[in-house]
């Protein structure tokens, strides 16, 4: 290698393959999304009625997280073109030139295979199969297939993010049950109002990239109606879950408070005129978005609390 290649002043885009740092590859795993995956999968695993050895639990959560990260890397591999067009994503490892697309593809595929096989060995075939399907669903069905074609992309993408607690539950029990489906439904129904609230006050980026967002294809009035409709269904489901195996008095209390607040914000979003929202800097939409983050955390924490107390004979409805 000549000294010329050691010129540190050159732009990042001129980097050669194989020169990315450890942090660049870690960024491909979408660590912020991974925190949600880890937390919800952990709750799914701990809420399950079958106890799991701590080492097996650690391995299961780790490989679920790696599988989620692999899906993130493959998503970045496919979406490098639109990531480069959007301000929010233009600094990601591929559009900024720190990692090549081929490297990201190889990295993502290798991690996907490792995570599925290792989860199988550590737990069972069902958990590994759901993880494999989740990666396939997120990368092929959502990222490659539907994201650029339908304004319901958020709903479909939400399904991929909803699988981790189901995988955690399957890792512990080797089965799918009503409780794990309810945890799936909680995230699945929460995702659309969460992202559409964001889409209402974050304008521009997706238009530029040509991704069909509901706010653009069906208008902002329609998006506001969608936020309310999904929140109503979400609230009914979240409250109903209180009377199943994952629920109990703590969960019901948390669900009553957070669903009342979320419904209040959803109704406010639905009733607001665009001019009023624009005038006050989308105050209500931003409040609903912030609340939605706490909403999911609170519900899964309550499920975890019920499961923990159950160990002392105190959780659930007795």
């Amino acid at each position, binding site marked *: 290698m000549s000294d010329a290649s050691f010129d540190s002043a050159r732009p990042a885009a001129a980097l050669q393959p194989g*020169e*990315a740092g*450890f*942090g660049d590859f*870690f960024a491909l795993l979408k660590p912020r999304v991974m925190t949600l995956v880890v937390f919800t999968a952990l709750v799914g695993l701990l809420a399950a009625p079958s106890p799991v050895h701590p*080492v097996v639990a*650690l391995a299961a959560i*780790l490989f679920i997280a790696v599988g989620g990260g692999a899906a993130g890397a493959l998503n970045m591999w496919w979406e490098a073109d639109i990531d480069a067009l959007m301000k929010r994503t233009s600094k990601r490892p591929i559009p900024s030139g720190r990692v090549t697309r081929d490297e990201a593809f190889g990295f993502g595929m290798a991690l996907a295979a490792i995570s599925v096989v290792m989860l199988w060995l*550590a737990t069972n075939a069902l958990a590994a199969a759901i993880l494999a399907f989740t990666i396939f669903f997120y990368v092929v069905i959502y990222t490659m297939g539907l994201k650029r074609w339908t304004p319901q992309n958020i709903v479909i993408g939400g399904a991929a993010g909803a699988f981790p607690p189901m995988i955690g539950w399957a890792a512990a029990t080797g089965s799918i049950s009503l409780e794990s489906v309810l945890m799936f439904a909680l995230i699945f129904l929460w995702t659309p109002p969460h992202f559409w609230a964001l889409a209402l006050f974050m304008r521009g980026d997706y238009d530029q990239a040509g991704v069909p967002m509901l706010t653009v294809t069906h208008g902002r009035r329609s998006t506001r109606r969608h936020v309310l409709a999904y929140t109503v269904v979400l609230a009914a489901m979240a409250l109903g879950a209180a009377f199943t195996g994952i629920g109990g008095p703590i969960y019901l209390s948390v669900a009553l408070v957070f669903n009342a607040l979320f419904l209040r914000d959803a109704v406010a979003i639905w009733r607001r005129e665009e001019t009023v929202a624009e005038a006050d800097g989308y105050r209500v939409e931003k409040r609903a978005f912030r609340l939605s983050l706490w909403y999911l955390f609170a519900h899964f924490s309550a499920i975890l609390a019920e499961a923990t107390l159950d160990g002392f004979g105190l959780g659930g409805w007795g």
Partner: protein
Amino acid sequence: MSFRENHELHTRRFGRNLGLGLVLAALVALVFGLTVVKVTTDDFRMLVDEEETQ
């Protein structure tokens, strides 16, 4: 003889190699731990017992 200071590229490569090394070491430790847990759990013991009785 003077040693030249490490270039940023070398520092980055070292960081990546160190990170990868630590990840692999952690994976080995995890697989070892998993193996120990698997061979000491009741299911595995029952399987071994069954084979021995046959």
